[in-house]
């Protein structure tokens, strides 16, 4: 059986990749994908601990996260489509009309 630590390390690696992706990428779609990556890293950590401690609450949490993520995808993609429709571009650095 794979030790829990491995899952946690994998989860940390995925989370870091996601966080870096969010910070460095400019394409809105990629940022979005990175956010998904971070979420799923968290999901992985949840199920890993759930299995290790034999608790159901972790699984339930993961279901919640997946459901919320689905909603977030719907809203986020809709936003991106609208921005693209408006600016013909999805580069987040270009979307700065709310700049102070």
């Amino acid at each position, binding site marked *: 059986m794979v030790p829990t630590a491995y899952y946690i390390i994998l989860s940390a690696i995925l989370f870091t990749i996601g*966080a870096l992706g*969010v*910070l*460095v*990428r*400019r394409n809105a779609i990629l*940022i979005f994908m990175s956010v998904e990556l971070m979420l799923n890293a968290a999901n992985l950590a949840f199920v890993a601990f759930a299995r290790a401690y034999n608790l159901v609450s972790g699984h339930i949490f993961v279901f919640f996260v997946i459901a919320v993520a689905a909603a977030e995808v719907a809203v986020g993609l809709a936003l991106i489509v609208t921005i693209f429709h408006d600016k013909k571009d999805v580069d*987040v*650095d270009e*979307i*700065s*009309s*709310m*700049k*102070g």
Partner: protein
Amino acid sequence: MDLFSLVPLVVFFPVIGLLINLIFGQRLGEKGIGIVASLFPALSFVVSVLLAVALAQNPEGRTVPFLEWINAGEVSIPWAFQVDTLSVTMMLVVSGVGTLIHIYATGYMHQDVRHHGDPKSYKRFFIYFNLFIAAMMILVSANNYLMLFVGWEGVGLCSYLLIGFWFDKGKDGIGNAWAGKKAFVVNRIGDFGFLIASFLLFWQFRSFEFSTVFEQAAQAPQSVLLAITLFMLLGVTGKSAQLPLFVWLPDAMAGPTPVSALIHAATMVTAGVYLVARSHPLYIQVEQAQEIVALTGALTALFAATIAIGQFDIKKVLAYSTISQLGFMVAAVGMGAFVAGMFHLVTHAFFKALLFLSAGSVIHGMEHGLEHVEHDQRLRRSLKGHGHDFDVQDMRNMGGLRDRMKTTFWVYLIGAVALAGIPPLAGFWSKDEILAEGLHLNIPVYILLTITALLTAFYAGRQVFMVFFGSPRTEPPAHAVESSPIMTIPLMVLAFLAFFGGLLNLPSLHTFTDWLMHTLMLEEAGAAEAVGEAAAAEAAFNPTVAIISTVLAVGGFALAWYIYRRVTERQKSIPPARRPDDPLRPALGPVFTGMEKKWWVDELYDAIIVRPYKWLSQFLADVIDWRFWHDWFHDTVIAGGYRRISQFLSEPVDMGVIDRFANRLADSIQSLAARGRLIQTGFVSSYALSVFIGVMLIIGYFMVRLTIAR
């Protein structure tokens, strides 16, 4: 049935008449209006007769309450009718003479419609006329001073409306309106006196009612009674045209002649005499007041009689004669000869109404003659100028009317002889009674009145001889025609009354004295005694006085005959250009001019009252109100001060303190915000980084805490 309770009808009948004419007048037509207008005063007369019948059985009379009028706190004034011999006498005169004049006026005003082509004015005239009867009835039937004042003002209003009836005529097209205004303003001065007297009465007696006031009159302080009676006298001089307020009455002749007869000779102007007679318990208490009233009356009588001699307008002569005769009455009631004064009031109402109405008939005849002359090419040339400039009321244009207007001549002669006081006509008996009383009570007044009696006979004769005798001085009187029967029949009735009016109070019978004594004796003991004394004096018919006044009257008439027939005839030889218009003019010189110019009283009033008054109002309006109050006080003080205060509040206070604080606050927040917005870069990744760092810091914090805790 109790006949006394009919008394409200004497007021309501004329009111019904005027309402009918007001609402249906247009549909009734001229005849209908005339019938309605004459019928209702006649009904009032019938009621007055019924009241007199009731009084004959029960002479004490009675107060008939009608309704609660004013009820406020301790003040309670009923609208109640006083039925006693005094008020019913007045009612009989007002409604009786009033009805005759109404009938006459239906004929007289017909001419007005014909000449001026305004049928609406006919309706208006009779509405005012009925309103006058109603107001006069309120005046005489009142049982308190306040109700009397309502009638007093009501008749004043009608007088004003009817003087200005032809408001578009007269000098400069506003002369008649001016005359009406003058009457109103002068009467206002008198009314002021009456009002003050009423206030004093209430202040002293806590009541306006005659009975309450008279009961307590003896206990009241002399000074208060003197003030009351003298202020009341001021009211009397206004309404009854006495010195010094008589000036409105001659101008009031601008109204139609029936108005002059009814209001300005027979009824309204006698209201003052009635007021003094009604208030006799007050006057008896203060001798000075009686003295002053008597002298006012006597002086007015003499003064007005002198002016009457110098007038040429047929109505002006009668107007001054009215003032003079009112002076007789006021002098009589002032002396305490209340019955004599009231007796003269009644006979004067007969003969002066007769004279005025006959004068109206003469004027009509002259107008007819003028119309005839104007339509005749040959006669027209004699007019010298336009027909409108010919004065049909000027006696110098008349003459010889005796043959053209027979009825008018005879009734006029009766009226003039009655006025002159030649026995056995009505004027003789009443005037003689006053003179006999005067000899007994007040010698100076007697002398003044006796001289006046001579002058009265003289101007009465002068008028008759100038108007009716000799040959026509101009063409119109030569073509005059007699008036219609609707006018001459009332004249004949009045002539009958003027002839036989003296029978009311023949020296040995004292019918009228006994009749009035019921009212004048009812008061408390002291007053009754004084009146009783006066009654005793009245009882004594003084043959000396009668002979003197008869001689003077006949002498005055004869003198008039001599001057205006003989001397005028003799002057025929003088060429017309140098012939004097009045034989008295060369004989009396400046005195005659004074009489003709009314002793310059109007000019005097103009100089000492009207012009200073106008100057004062000009001054008040221009300097005080406009320059001081408006320009200086309003503009400089109020507006300027306000502007300065608001300037101070706006500049240093508002802008300097409040605004500066608010602006500083806003500025500092703005600069803070300017710095804060630098954080908002617009780069999503930098936001994400800051979120990331924040999360790191929070997690780091918790980790550190956990580590320490462990």
